[in-house]
């Protein structure tokens, strides 16, 4: 995975202090009784051609962050810059132009494809809507894309239900690829697939990047999958990034107690390594509508001290390009 990190011109993606809160409405008058702090102050940046992994448990806000960058959900505050352009204030028309640069691949290849339209048309539609090509020209382009993602052009006439899960995910990738985006946000793109098919799709993602040089924001809960494909990895917990580092650095010397717990929880497919009994992290992830004060991880952290319960730790660069938010580092 060659990636030139010395080039630091305008980052492809810059997210600053992004917050996405959802109101909780209750009662007959739908009064707002609280908020879900799904994304609560996230700052990340990505370079061209880079794959950034975003990992965390359910409720960590990783999917909401991805959707916020697409503005599929409206962020509450903060900045999102794509190639230097601030997109949070853009109106519908200007946003439309920007969507071309950022495309999304979803988790469930069953519900994200229209069952009533031939799959070739689903991909061609993206080209038409964005005024790239129509008619025969669009069809030829779709043909090429189909071949590129490992589908037969003759399959363009078929409907989504005629494909297996892995093939449907290829169609989803084809649709995203059609617009030649600079960034693809992939939200759990392989977690619904069987192991043998998962490997095919992960390889496809890596091959396409080598060929077209786009960046991926790869959202997943499976750290092994993320490790396979990502250059850098960000760990999210309850709406905040708790640690971010280059892949090997993160796996070899994780700093945040949550990252360590997450890594030790993964069952290793080697029966000679039986898990340590003390690796188990107690309790559940707290509700994002009522996050703990101080460090959000303190309720489950084996190392928590008094100050962790009161002061929120600063997100700091502990070693070059390795950031973490913990008082004890």
């Amino acid at each position, binding site marked *: *995975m060659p990636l030139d990190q010395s080039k630091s011109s305008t980052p492809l993606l810059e997210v600053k202090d992004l917050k996405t809160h959802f109101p909780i409405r209750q009662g007959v008058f739908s009064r707002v009784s609280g908020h879900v702090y799904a994304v609560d102050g996230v700052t990340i940046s990505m370079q061209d051609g880079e794959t950034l992994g975003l990992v965390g*448990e*359910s409720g960590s806000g990783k999917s909401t962050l991805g959707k916020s960058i697409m503005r599929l959900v409206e962020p509450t505050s903060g900045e999102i810059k794509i190639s230097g352009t601030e997109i949070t204030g853009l109106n519908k028309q200007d946003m439309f132009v920007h969507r071309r640069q950022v495309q999304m691949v979803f988790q469930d290849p069953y519900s994200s494809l229209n069952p009533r339209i031939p799959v070739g048309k689903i991909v061609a539609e993206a080209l038409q809507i964005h005024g790239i090509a129509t008619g025969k020209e669009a069809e030829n382009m779709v043909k090429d894309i189909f071949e590129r993602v490992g589908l037969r052009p003759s399959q363009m006439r078929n409907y989504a239900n005629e494909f*297996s899960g*892995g093939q449907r995910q290829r169609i989803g990738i084809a649709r995203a690829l059609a617009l030649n985006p600079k960034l693809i946000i992939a939200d759990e793109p392989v977690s619904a697939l*069987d*192991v*043998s*098919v*998962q*490997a*095919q799709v*992960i*390889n496809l993602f*890596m091959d396409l990047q080598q060929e077209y040089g786009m960046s991926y924001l790869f959202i997943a*809960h499976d*750290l*092994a*999958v993320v*490790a*396979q494909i990502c250059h850098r990895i960000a760990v999210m917990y309850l709406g905040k990034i708790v640690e971010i580092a280059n*892949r*090997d650095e993160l*796996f*070899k010397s994780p700093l945040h107690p949550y990252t360590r*717990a*997450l*890594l*030790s*929880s*993964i*069952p*290793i*497919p*080697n*029966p*000679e*390594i*039986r*898990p340590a*009994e003390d*690796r*188990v*992290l*107690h309790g*559940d*992830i707290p509700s994002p509508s009522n996050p703990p004060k101080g460090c959000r991880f303190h309720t489950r952290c084996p190392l928590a001290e008094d100050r962790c319960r009161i002061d929120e730790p600063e997100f700091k660069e502990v070693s070059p390009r390795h950031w973490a938010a913990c008082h004890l580092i």
Partner: protein
Amino acid sequence: MDARTPVLELKNLETHFETRDGTVRAVDGVSYSVNAGETLAVVGESGCGKSVSSLSILRLIPNPPGKIVGGSVMFGGEDLTQVSEERIRVIRGNEISMIFQEPMTSLNPMMTIGKQISEPLTQHLGLSKKEAANRAQEMLDLVQIPDSKKWLSGYPHEMSGGMRQRVMIAIALACDPKVLIADEPTTALDVTIQAQILLLIRELQKKMGTAVIMVTHDLGVVAEVANRVVVMYAGRKVEEASVKDLFANPQHPYTIGLMTAIPRLDKITNGDGLNERLTEIPGVVPPLYNLPAGCAFADRCSFATDKCRTDKPVFEEKSPNHWAACWQEISN
């Protein structure tokens, strides 16, 4: 462990489903057994028949379209495929119990947690309401749910996924069953919660001596909990071995494929570095209503010869206690 009589033994079990496309041979002559205190993992991908084989044990296959058409399930001298409906109901949840992937849909949303645990106790063991309630609280303590007394009157929707799975385990173990069938019990859970649940199952198994059949697609889970492993593909058993033998020396090309297709985190941490690409298993599982004459894996197998395409491989002992169904000699 091998010398003992197994608690539960499937022999040549066949479960078929009648569909518009034809007969789906979901389980096509599968045999496996489990001993007391042992964990047998049944592993494979979607559609390999691992879940259907485990559901067939307690006759939980919807009929129609499904039907156990052959073979036997021996449990304490009885063939569960033949016993009466009344008898199987006594066995279910009492002598053999089951936990499923989705704890929310397996629990009754309208019934308190306490009631759901004590119901099988009053029905199967004839305990009084009061005794059952006490035992229910003990079970919640056993599965390490804090504030067990409070939760007796709580409802499933108030709990997290991990807690619900703990309740499922409490219900399953309340009658002290001889066999626990766990069908993908941690697949819907986050990894940190999965670690908690797997540890809990291991601890309780040690304490109670239960035989566990763990149905899973995750080789990491297999390596962590299993003593012995059965690998299934397209309704058949393709390999069986102790967990150590299986991982050290897999004999079936499909097992080898599965092992090389998963990204290996341990390779980063021990400094080997990751492979640039994952090894793919080309193609997909053949439709179960139209299986090829020979080995069902032949079309995806790099070792396959003409014989593999015409003759079904025999399930044979490749090395002591290590069995596989493959015509080829595989050396790793």
